């Protein structure tokens, strides 16, 4: 089940003012008045996400088969699950971290030779090897060499545990402890104070930020070595490592994780469609096939195409036998294949069947959800929700069949509803050619489709006919360029929409433009930006 499915599509009567003809939910960096644009905003250090935690554990013990470990379900803030301010140390999380540490340590020590950097056959060797283990595992778990006081504490704890319980238990307790420390669980960032009051991240801190952003996992030895040699002290050095990480297969999962949340691919989940209206649809197989196709397409756009324009105007799709009907091409056997689609009907991610289906109901398309998707994810200008007490049901079909558009347009134009809905529906109605499965249609309820729309309150305002034309307009929009930068930067730093501002975003967007709006260059621009390399702190 997904959120989009339950965002009510319609307003019948309105009671209070929402939008008054201008865009913005008050949190867009482009439109927010009164926020400080002078500096970075102070936000708390990030804790590893569940995916980062799981990958890091596997990377820490590469020779060991670990049990699958999990953490309590993460919450979504502003579309992303990594918001650092909302990460709560709930009792359930703390309990689970203990249980996981025990499970991982126990599995790692089934054959200690797979984790120990040394042999320990005598009492003296047990002590020296234990201490070597502390430094070796500690360096990787903390993603930097241990400080001397840390070595002293962990060695002391190891010695005490060995005396009390013996060598194997002491090893286990060492692993269990390290896996529950803040140095492991958090990107603890001290930085170095600069003359302007900002704190520059240390090379090791940058290495972690880079690696968790681009790999969703801990730094490898080469990255730690680069940090140790001072290579990451300059933007040039950062760029070199960033390009190395991006060229590694681990980057593919990390980019996919971002795109899945940014483009709401995670909302293609458990969709149910009327069997009579949509005979090609199968509740059991279509959602998963569409989700896989959309994820593959997002990968393709990033890795094989790379330009922002491709996201908005490309006309290819990953088509399989399960999904061919929704793409409007002949069925194809075997695994999903990249096929050209009708460029008059398809326009990149905008019209992709998986997302069109995610923003629809069991019978009808959902113009409001589609409009909100574009406003929130591509223009960074979310509209506020309707006021409480407003009945949002779609008016049903009457004696004369009407299109979805006809049924909702009239009520949306009433009173104070019109302010927001002029903006939302102006975009959403442009998608009227796509039914609730994402398939192209020329008629809706027997009536010809009217897919004319208009952009209001953007830098590319004006009328358009259909989503392909909308894609062309958005591809020219500087606001879209800035929004895509904002989404990447927000995700890279775990920020909520109101925790980012123009000063942080604009330099990244400038580079993005200079690099021909190549999203891979955007990612490099993110890691070279001040927002990525510096922190501010309140005293």
């Amino acid at each position, binding site marked *: *089940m997904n959120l989009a499915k339950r965002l009510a599509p319609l307003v019948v009567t309105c009671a209070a003012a929402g939008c008054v003809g201008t865009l913005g*939910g*008050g949190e867009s960096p482009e439109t927010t008045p009164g926020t400080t644009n002078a500096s970075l905003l102070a936000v708390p250090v990030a804790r590893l996400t569940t995916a980062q935690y799981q990958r890091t554990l596997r990377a820490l013990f590469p020779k060991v088969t670990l049990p699958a470990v999990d953490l309590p379900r993460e919450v979504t803030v502003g579309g992303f699950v990594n918001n650092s301010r909302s990460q709560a*140390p709930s009792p359930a999380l703390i309990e689970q971290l203990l249980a996981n540490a025990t499970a991982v340590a126990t599995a790692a020590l089934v054959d200690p030779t797979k984790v120990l950097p040394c042999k320990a056959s005598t009492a003296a060797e047990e002590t020296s090897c234990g201490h070597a283990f502390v430094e070796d595992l500690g360096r990787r778990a903390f993603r930097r060499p241990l400080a001397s006081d840390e070595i002293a504490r962990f060695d002391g*704890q190891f010695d005490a545990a060995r005396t009390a319980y013996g060598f194997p238990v002491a090893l286990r307790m060492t692993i269990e*402890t390290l896996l*529950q420390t803040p140095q492991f669980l958090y990107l603890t960032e001290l930085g170095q104070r600069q003359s302007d009051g900002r704190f520059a991240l240390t090379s090791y801190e940058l290495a972690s930020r880079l690696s968790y952003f681009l790999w969703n996992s801990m730094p490898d030895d080469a990255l730690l070595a680069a940090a140790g040699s001072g290579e990451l002290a300059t933007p040039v050095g950062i760029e070199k490592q960033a390009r190395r990480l991006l060229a590694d297969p681990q980057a593919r999962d990390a980019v996919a994780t971002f795109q899945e949340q940014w483009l709401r691919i995670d909302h293609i989940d458990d969709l149910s469609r009327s069997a009579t209206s949509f005979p090609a649809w199968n509740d059991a197989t279509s959602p998963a096939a569409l989700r896989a196709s959309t994820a593959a397409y997002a990968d393709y756009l990033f890795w094989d195409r790379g330009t922002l324009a491709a996201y908005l105007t490309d006309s290819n799709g990953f088509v399989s036998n399960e999904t061919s009907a929704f793409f409007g091409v002949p069925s194809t056997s075997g695994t999903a294949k990249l096929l050209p689609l009708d460029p008059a009907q398809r326009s990149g991610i905008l019209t992709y069947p998986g997302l069109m289906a995610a923003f629809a109901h069991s019978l009808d398309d959902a113009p409001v959800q589609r409009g909100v998707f574009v406003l929130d994810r591509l223009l960074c200008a979310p509209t506020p*929700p*309707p006021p409480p007490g407003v*009945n949002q049901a779609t008016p049903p079909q009457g004696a004369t069949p009407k299109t979805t558009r006809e049924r909702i347009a009239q009520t949306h134009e009433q009173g104070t509803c019109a302010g927001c809905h002029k903006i939302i529906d102006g975009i959403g109605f442009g998608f009227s050619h796509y039914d609730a499965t994402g398939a192209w249609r020329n008629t809706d309820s027997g009536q010809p489709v009217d897919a004319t729309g208009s952009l209001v309150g953007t830098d590319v305002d004006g009328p358009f006919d259909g989503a392909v034309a909308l894609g062309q307009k958005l591809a020219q929009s500087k606001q879209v360029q800035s929004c895509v930068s904002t989404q990447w930067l927000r995700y890279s730093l775990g920020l909520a929409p109101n925790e980012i501002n123009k000063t942080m975003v604009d330099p990244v967007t400038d580079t993005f433009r200079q690099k021909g709006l190549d999203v891979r260059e955007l990612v490099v621009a993110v890691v070279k930006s001040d927002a990525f390399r510096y922190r501010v702190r309140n005293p």
Partner: protein
Amino acid sequence: MNQGRKDGRGEMRGLSRRGLLQALGIGAATAALLPYGLSVGSRSASAGPVQIPKRILFIYGMGSIRSFYPPVGVGGAPASENSWALGPLHTPLIGMEKKLVITNGLDMAVNTVTQPDAGNAHIQGGTEALTAAKRSNSSLSSGASIDQWIAQRLNAPTPVTKIPSLELSAGCDGGDAEGGPHYIAGGQVISAERNPNVAFNRVFGGFSNPGQTPAEIAAAQAALDQKKSVLENAAREFSSVAPKLAQEDRTKLEAHASAIRDLEARLALRASSACTPPDAKYQSDLKMFTTPGKHAVSDFDLDARLVTSAFSCDLTRVATIHLPSHYDLESTIGYTGGMFGTTDTHDLTHKTNDANAALWNDAAAMAIVKKIHLAQAQMFRRVLDLLDGIPEADGTTLLDNTAVLWCGQIAEGGHALTELPWILAGGAGGAFRTGRYLKFDRPNDRGPSHNDLFVSLANAVGVATNSFGEASVCTGPLRGL
């Protein structure tokens, strides 16, 4: 990685009832003779009159249909405080009237003063329903939720139960939007557990058999000592790192460290002497869970049984169960997409919301939508029956010592946050008089704030306060309760 894992979260799966009883320190033979038999619980030995703990349970869902929510009158008279009969959506509760307080007219008054706008209409209520506080951004509340706030105070200065509070969800949290309703502090959201196996393991797992022989007893003690030592060492690292960091970081890490120390103190807490652990049927029913939402009604039942056991064993005193949403109940009520020209049950609930709604006069559609509410009332009844089925040492029942609040994220199908259809059950140990219909005056169309109700609930379970949540809309304990 949600289901069927063989990991730290699932290790108790398949544990036999005998094993469970032994782990709890309740001999299987003894337990067979004495269903609520003696255990080795650390709090069982105290002499003197039995102190029965007060518990609080939130049953969290959506809203109701305003026209059908209020109780009806008896014998031709309008419903009054002490003379009323349950309305048409609440017939499954018939027979329970004496243990209910039907409220009518409370508002989420904080919604009239909060900013900024929520991301959508469901986030609006979701951020306010249990926190009664303003939002700090479009997704997050600025305050702790009442369940967490009470749990933190009941377990201070030192923990009194193994689990401070349980947050369980049957189904998919329909419409819960981004963070959901539970906050341990402003901005700090926690999710509800959807997998009953994980929940069971959290409550009844982790107990080690205290052992019989001196060697076994020593080994069990050593295992506990090692865990405590590991936690203490980890917490010490937080103390070492935090002072070097900025204020925001420090606050975040200190909260984590404090949660570790709290767990350290909770490790030794065990079940109370009066303890009804889940039975064998429960453990076999756990296998019915597949994925969230697939068997939402039986998932709810598992959650309800787990909470009842957890309360009875004093393993927690605060819990929330999220009711299955209308989506999760589609097969239960016999709805399929397209019926009545509706796209889904979401659409259906909007179209049957009030007399202006499109399907109000469609008897078949209204019958189906009522089934959603009746199914939820049936689940609420099930919880009350379970709680009422556990006798306490003084002859009362677990329900009599629990405050149960059936609450939700919105009041009705138009996402209104006023005139909340919230029902109280149980007496919280005599803290409030039940068997009543509490209809509040609404001068200027405004009723008492739900902040006031939460003040009363906190007081009822022994947490003294005069204010909760947004102070500007809170006047103190709810008048009339």
